[in-house]
């Protein structure tokens, strides 16, 4: 095999473990007719149909597999270019420098600590994350990475978050899935919030209705 290329394994060489039968829980049915309704708006006749369409994706991680396997084992794997030495996390399986001619990078273990570059305090998010509101989305430079990675920063009082604060990585003790959601950031224990400022008071006030809303939301689920 050409050593400058990522290997393309043959299907015959895979030993697939049987998938847990997801489709018993989430049956795939394709186009499923559900509903129809109609009416008149002004003098315009209208009709609407609700049609359910579903799909189950398989993400095949390929060259990124070591990264995902690392997460399963509670490790953060980034990449390092053997030519220029650039380290990136999230990983890049080929170097990003045009001068390095797409050099295949090496896997390196990243420390479980970093510096927060920027953040936002989310008062609204996608459905899967609503119950976590208000949460902090942080861009963090892990170890010596030249790229920042986005993930959740868990902190009791989000208005205290600040640029350049040191953070640590925590892995879930529950079932890991080899994805970003297996870990999150927390303030480094050595870090202490600075005193309240008018901006912090303002953010705290903006968060109040979010806490109220989430209480109601949690009750209704």
């Amino acid at each position, binding site marked *: 095999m050409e050593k400058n290329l990522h290997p393309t394994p043959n299907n015959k060489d895979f030993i697939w473990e049987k998938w847990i039968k997801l489709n018993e829980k989430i049956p795939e049915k394709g186009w499923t007719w559900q509903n129809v309704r109609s009416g008149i708006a002004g003098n315009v006749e209208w009709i609407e149909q609700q049609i359910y369409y579903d799909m189950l994706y398989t993400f095949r991680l390929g060259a990124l597999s070591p990264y995902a396997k690392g997460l399963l084992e509670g490790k953060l794997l980034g990449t390092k270019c053997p030519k220029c030495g650039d380290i990136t996390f999230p990983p890049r399986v080929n170097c990003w420098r*045009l001068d390095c001619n797409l050099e295949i990078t090496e896997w390196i273990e990243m420390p479980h600590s970093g510096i927060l*570059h920027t953040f*936002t305090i989310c008062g*609204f998010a996608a459905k899967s994350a609503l119950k976590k509101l208000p949460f902090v*989305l942080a861009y963090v430079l892990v170890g010596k990475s030249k790229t920042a990675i986005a993930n*959740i920063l868990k902190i009791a009082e989000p208005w205290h978050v600040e640029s350049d604060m040191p953070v640590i990585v925590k892995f879930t003790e529950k079932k890991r899935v080899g994805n970003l959601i297996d870990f999150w950031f927390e303030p480094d224990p050595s870090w202490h919030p600075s005193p309240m400022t008018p901006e912090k008071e303002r*953010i705290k006030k903006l968060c109040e209705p*979010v806490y109220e809303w989430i209480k109601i939301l949690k009750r209704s689920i």
Partner: protein
Amino acid sequence: MPEQQKVFIAGGTTTPFDYPLNLQIEEMVANCIRQLYKDVPEFHLKDVRDNGMVVYSHFSVHFSHQLTAYWILHDHLGLVGVPHFRIDNGGNTGGSALYAAYALVRAGLADVVPVIGYELMGSVSQSKGSEFIAIASDTRYEAMLGANYTNYYAGLARVFMEEYGLTEEDFAEIAAKNKNNAVATGEKAQHYRKVGNKLTVEDVMNSRLISYPLKKWDCCFMSEGAATVLVCNEQFAKQYSPDYYVEIVGAGLSSCTIRAGDRYAFPGWTERYGEGYPGLGEFAACRHSAEVAFKMAGIEWKDSYKYLDVAEVHDAFSTSEFQIYNALGWCQSITPKQFIRDRMPMMEGEIPTNPGGGLIGYGHPVGATGLMSTVECYYQLAGLISREHRSTDNEVKDAEVGLVNSHAGTGTSISNFILKRV
């Protein structure tokens, strides 16, 4: 070999933008073409058949519950045998489709190229819709967090805010400006259709937290609609709209990382602009594409607003509009803080920005958005505001040079165009 030719815009129109719009895509687009027939009586699709192509501008097949949805449109318009293709470039789909039409006419491969953009977004629930849009972020990483583009943009805005000492009020000024400009635009603008009245900076400040520093009124809303821009060569421009045509004198298209965190020290940018740029707070692809477009038009990037009379830019968020000012070189001789406090982008300011309402006021049906910005800029330069808008409160009188900006991802693809009244 075909010869290079100058490129013009001889007409343009949009459907109303709303959510949902309750229309099928073929009637949306047919309405646009029939409106063009009315506004530009000399234009006919037969010219496209004989001398042209069609560039379709459409972002998401997820939303359209249909692959290659433009195939439905093309034969619906009576066109077979006419070359067609579709551009998808995220939020910069409209700008990129315009760029493609520009390139085709410029290269002499076609003489009349309508750019037809559309987006259905009310085909799914709002939360599913945000998720569909978030699928344009890296699904192996960012999208899995349950965050969406508003959250990413807020993170980028916050570091920009910190860098330049800006406040939430500075952004709220922009949000209120665009909502209020849309009130003058009228029936086609989503804010006028849905809310109908003006908002104050206080209204923006008091609206609910979406993602700090963004509140509800700082953000554009999901919308549906279609837009068409009639791109052509000089001969057709003079034939179609002798009194109402503008020239595209500059066009730039650039790109940046899909994951915003990856541009912290990307070699492609540090080699061009030096260490520390763009970081996460600046839109380097906006600066770069603007520099390209400005150079073609003989405009300097630094303080470029001095050469421009009007700008229609991609204000998905009030904060990103501000970041665009900076990327366009408008805050070089004065600080960003002074730029907004001097009310430079307001109707009465030096460079009225988004007089049509922008995405915040007019709406953001992705595939149609960049074309809407183009149409609004065209109306200003062609002196058509009194014909097209509810009131002339948002008219920039005697505007001669305008800028159109279209913007995607977290700044991942950005185009800029300079239009000039002929």
